């Protein structure tokens, strides 16, 4: 029957998806590039994404963009790590080819979360360091320190200032904890692609043999070494008006005396991988807190923190820790006795979510955090919650039932879920048509006659997670689209309010009369004010929704990646 075939076809499509990029991802990448870098970069970027690796000339021709603009766009993308280049595939001497990374561009969506995390971990200074780095792609340490110190000083009250050394220490902490890393040095001699044998007929996606893949930052020994920088001083306060000229001078001077800092050519970038590990840990901790209790989550937090350094990022579970070690490392203000800790650990191991596993009995019991298992279970909970919210709790019951029992006939579903046949059928078919549930047919005879065939419903968690991931991308793109639309609709009003604000500011600066100020203020009418207010409300709502969807994206993506690694 066509149902069965379509589900097989669907699976096949899901396989392909893993390698290439989907239309939804491309659309979202385009929107993100336009928002952050403008339309030219968007055009070049999406063109590169769609067509795979291409040389400069082809990009310029096919995207219809002047060569110098293409060059600048590529430079921007390169600076942010969203684009890589390597020697042409046609042998030595062929033009260098460029390739955009969809994965990296999609991370732009998560910028607010990186910045927020840096703020919660390392305060305002950490926030600004990460923000600057995200905005500029990569920078030298000295320039980051200067910019951040300047910005901090500017926001402080008169007479206070920030020493460079303070920023340097925060920066070093961020590097120590691997949140920042050195950019991999660009090798002059790009290994010729011709050394790797080309498989004839292979598409552009498969033409990236490991030999010519760009080196990862971690493969360099100095990746997390902070260079010795001679930076003494403090942040300068930016002044408006007449001070601008002087500031120009300062920055020029800064450029000239950069030589003396001793960290030229050492560029830094944000280590997204590390942030993602942190997010993953946080997700697990908060899940434990909501499933069990605060103390359990604190124990899991301790375990994760202890194994942070020793566990490789791709491991499916953390290094084993003995109960004794865990007990010693618990935060001092958590006064729980050793037997109680053992009880908590036993409970964690017993819990069906399997966040924590027991790997041995030495040292009072060896425990691990099942990272892969936890992600799988959390992803499953996410799928369940999507079904629950969208189709109601009864459909969710059927969905969970299928997740638990794997293959069930329609009659069995009705009986187990205790839902009347008619409703159960309706729900099953709806779930089937939304691709959340799949149908497996097992014919008793070779002629596939429906009367002699078993029809088994099942849920393929990985495929469903991939599909929901695509839904998430489309949703974010929709939200961005809507936000752009809302802004466009009120463009005139926004411009007007900006103009008036500017006038007000200049009037205030020149010490105008209060009457004059109110007169200007009244140029925006009450309905207009209301409209602006509701616009701001809408934009905020859309913004926060984007971030919320990104949390789902993160969890599903982490699950898909972790499963891919586990099955390798």
């Amino acid at each position, binding site marked *: 029957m066509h149902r069965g075939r379509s589900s097989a076809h669907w699976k096949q499509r899901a396989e392909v998806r893993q390698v290439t990029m989907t239309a939804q991802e491309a659309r979202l990448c385009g929107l993100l590039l336009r928002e952050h870098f403008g339309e030219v970069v968007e055009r070049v970027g999406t063109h590169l994404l769609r067509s795979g690796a291409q040389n400069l000339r082809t990009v310029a021709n096919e995207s219809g963009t002047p060569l110098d603009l293409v060059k600048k766009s590529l430079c921007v993308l390169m600076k942010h790590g969203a684009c890589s280049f390597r020697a042409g595939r046609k042998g030595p001497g062929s033009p260098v080819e460029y390739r955009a990374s969809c994965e990296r561009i999609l991370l732009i969506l998560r910028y607010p979360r990186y910045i927020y995390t840096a703020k919660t971990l390392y305060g305002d200074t950490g926030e600004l360091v990460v923000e600057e780095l995200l905005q500029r792609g990569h920078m030298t340490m000295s320039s980051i320190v200067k910019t951040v110190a300047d910005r901090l000083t500017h926001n402080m009250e008169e007479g206070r200032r920030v020493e460079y050394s303070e920023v340097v220490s925060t920066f070093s902490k961020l590097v120590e904890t691997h949140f920042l890393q050195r950019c991999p040095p660009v090798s002059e001699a790009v290994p010729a692609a011709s050394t790797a044998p080309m498989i004839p007929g292979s598409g552009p996606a498969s033409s990236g043999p490991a030999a010519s893949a760009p080196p990862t930052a971690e493969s360099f020994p100095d990746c997390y070494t902070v260079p010795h920088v001679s930076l003494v001083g403090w942040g300068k306060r930016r002044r408006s008006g007449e001070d601008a000229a002087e500031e120009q001078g300062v920055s020029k001077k800064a450029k000239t005396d950069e030589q003396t800092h001793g960290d030229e050519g050492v560029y830094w970038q944000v280590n997204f991988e590390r942030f993602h590990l942190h997010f993953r840990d946080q997700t697990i901790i908060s899940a434990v807190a*909501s*499933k069990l209790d605060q103390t359990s989550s604190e124990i899991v937090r301790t375990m994760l923190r202890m194994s942070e350094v020793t566990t490789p990022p791709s491991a499916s579970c953390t290094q084993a820790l003995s109960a004794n070690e865990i007990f010693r490392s618990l935060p001092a203000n958590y006064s729980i006795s050793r037997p109680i800790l053992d009880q908590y650990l036993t409970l964690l191991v017993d819990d069906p979510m399997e966040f924590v596993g027991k790997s041995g009995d030495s040292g009072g019991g060896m425990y691990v955090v099942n990272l892969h298992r936890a992600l799988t279970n959390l992803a499953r909970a996410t799928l369940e919650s*999507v079904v629950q919210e969208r189709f109601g709790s009864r459909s969710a019951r*059927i969905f969970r039932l299928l997740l*638990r029992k794997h293959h069930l006939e329609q009659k069995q579903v009705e009986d187990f879920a205790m839902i009347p046949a008619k409703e159960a059928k309706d729900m099953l078919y709806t779930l089937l048509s939304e691709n959340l549930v799949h149908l497996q047919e097992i014919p008793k005879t070779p002629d596939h006659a429906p009367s002699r065939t078993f029809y088994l419903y099942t849920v393929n968690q990985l495929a469903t997670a991939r599909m929901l991931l695509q839904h998430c991308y489309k949703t974010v793109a929709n939200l961005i*689209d809507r936000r752009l639309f809302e802004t466009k609709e009120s463009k005139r009003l926004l411009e007007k309010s900006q103009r008036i604000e500017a006038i007000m500011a200049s009037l205030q600066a020149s010490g105008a009369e209060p009457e004059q100020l109110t007169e200007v203020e009244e140029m925006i009418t009450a309905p207009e004010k209301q409209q602006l207010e509701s616009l701001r409300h*809408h934009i905020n*709502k859309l913004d926060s929704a984007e971030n*919320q969807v*990104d949390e789902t994206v993160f969890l599903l993506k982490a699950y898909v990646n972790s499963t891919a690694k586990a099955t390798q």
Partner: protein
Amino acid sequence: MADVKVKKESDPADVAAIETRSKIKELCQQFPHGITDQVIQNDMPHLEAQQRAMVLNKLLSLGHLDLLKNSSGLLYRMKDAQSASKMKGSDNQEKLVYQIIEDAGNKGIWTRDIRFKCNLPLTEVNKILKNLESKKLIKAVKSVAASKKKVYMLYNVQPDRSVTGGAWYSDQDFESEFVEVLNQQCFKFLQSKAEVARDSKQSPMIQRNSSFATSHEVWKYICELGISKVDLSMEDIETILSTLIYDGKVEMTIIAAKEGTVGSVDGQMKLYRGVNPVIQPTGLVKTPCGLCPVFDECHEGGEISPSRCIYMTEWLNF
């Protein structure tokens, strides 16, 4: 009928036969579970086998006795006076059909199967069934498995669960509201138990263990609550509890229990406890797109588009 015959019979051999008959009947009354041939032989050693057989056949044809078969051989049992009197005025065909239906017990029997067993034409069977039904000797019950299928069983028999669908069906309809109410009540019970355990401030292990409730406890609670008109068995409650598991609200553990402990089945005891959800509704479903019924048809510039989306507008103005 028998009395009439008794009066008519004056032959001494017949008189002897009548005596034997009443003796056997007495014997049967003494052993309500039935008697074997051996018992009759012991009681009346003078009786010849042929005579015995004749008397028994007579009793059987008169419908005073039932012939049953068990592992040790044939058994004779007194037919209860009620059914005997009910069958008064029925002919042999009716009796036959009645017998077949009686044999089917509480599972009931389908018209077609009756026809096969008694070898009567369909019209005849239908007539007899109608007759019996009007006498309130049998009843027709609609099966939940197939709503068109009617099965017949004796009037005073409680239909089997497989026919009625158990406690969850009234007539042929599944009582989903009843199930939902029970589902909620069971969850409330487990939840309050878990809360009490949490508030007890004891060690975590004790807290967890006291949040468990056996299926027997839940069953007792529901029975005492008196929300159900029908009698629910412990299995019924366990079915309800497993729907709670599929709702993701409850977890189950099976522990070994001493034989004879209240609520244990085959040395196992099922423990249930209410649990907290592991995550809040995910970010995707907090947006209108996550719940949108026309999500797949939505494209920028299309008939349905994010810019013109009414769901989005509603959500933004909320």
